[in-house]
């Protein structure tokens, strides 16, 4: 197998996904306000979250909405930093973050590579979360808060619940990259 070729196949799929999202945001009232592709460490997370805050302030977005978006951005980025996998021979971190503004809402798009082995479990978990009412989400949240502790990796199981509580809508999809990995993408809509 030509490893160099194979990592460019994954990269091609990844780029196509990001470009598809970008293509929807090319007018005055639909724009990408923050964008990041690639390596994510805490320093980068700090920079990106500050940038999001600054952009929202510039757009005169309410404090409540700004906090929600900030919250969602931190959660997706820390999730990627914790769980994202580097793919292929070149060990490319196939991560992306796009924050987009529409007239009546903001959408946070984020993605990272995940091992194929966890796709089914992740899909089931997110479908369950999608199906919960706000009441059920809060109950789940309190359950994890009461009984939860931090795993070795530092995750808490609260990340997706927090995202679902802050956002008005949550969508996701998986695109197969190769035998080992898929690109997991999540979209979180926050109303203005």
């Amino acid at each position, binding site marked *: 197998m030509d490893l160099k070729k194979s990592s460019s196949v994954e990269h091609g799929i990844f780029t196509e996904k990001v470009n598809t999202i970008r293509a929807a945001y090319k007018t005055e009232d639909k724009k990408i306000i923050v964008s990041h592709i690639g390596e994510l460490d805490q320093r980068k997370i700090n920079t990106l979250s500050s940038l999001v805050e600054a952009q929202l302030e510039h757009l005169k977005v309410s404090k409540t909405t700004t*906090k929600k978006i900030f*919250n969602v951005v931190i959660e997706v980025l820390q999730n990627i930093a914790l769980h994202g996998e580097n793919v292929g021979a070149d060990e490319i971190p196939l991560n992306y973050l796009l924050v987009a503004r529409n007239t009546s809402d903001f959408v946070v798009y984020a993605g990272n590579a995940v091992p194929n082995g966890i796709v089914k479990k992740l899909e089931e978990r997110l479908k369950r979360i999608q199906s919960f009412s706000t009441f059920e989400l809060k109950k789940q949240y309190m359950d994890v808060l009461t009984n939860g502790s*931090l795993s070795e990796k530092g995750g808490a199981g609260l990340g997706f619940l927090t995202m679902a509580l802050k956002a008005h809508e949550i969508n996701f999809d998986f695109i197969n990259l190769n035998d080992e990995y898929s690109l997991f993408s999540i979209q979180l809509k926050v109303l203005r």
Partner: protein
Amino acid sequence: MTRFELEETSNTPHIVFDSEANKFSIEGKSFPEDSKEFYRRVIDWMEQYKAEKPAAISLSFNLFYLSSSSIISVKQLLLKLVDLQNQGTKVSVTWKYDHDDDDIKKTGEDYQQLTKLNFVYKVNV
């Protein structure tokens, strides 16, 4: 006990634990890269403080933001205060928040419900 202080950074709060000055406060933003690691020292300090059997402690929080993993770590810190209370220390938690910040206020209420500690809520002016 030795005074404990952590300077504020872009993603971690300013923490002061000073038993002599009777000042215990946590202020700022909390989204450390590794919450477990960051709060380990903080929780350990409080664990050691239990041995001094203080008469009273009042811990003040003024957090603008808490990531989901640091929410768990702060809970673990509050559980040390529950231990102190069970030992006979008079414990109170002051939970400060901005007047329009329902999220932070609600987080305080969640903690109160969970720990049954005495929470005093204060709106930042």
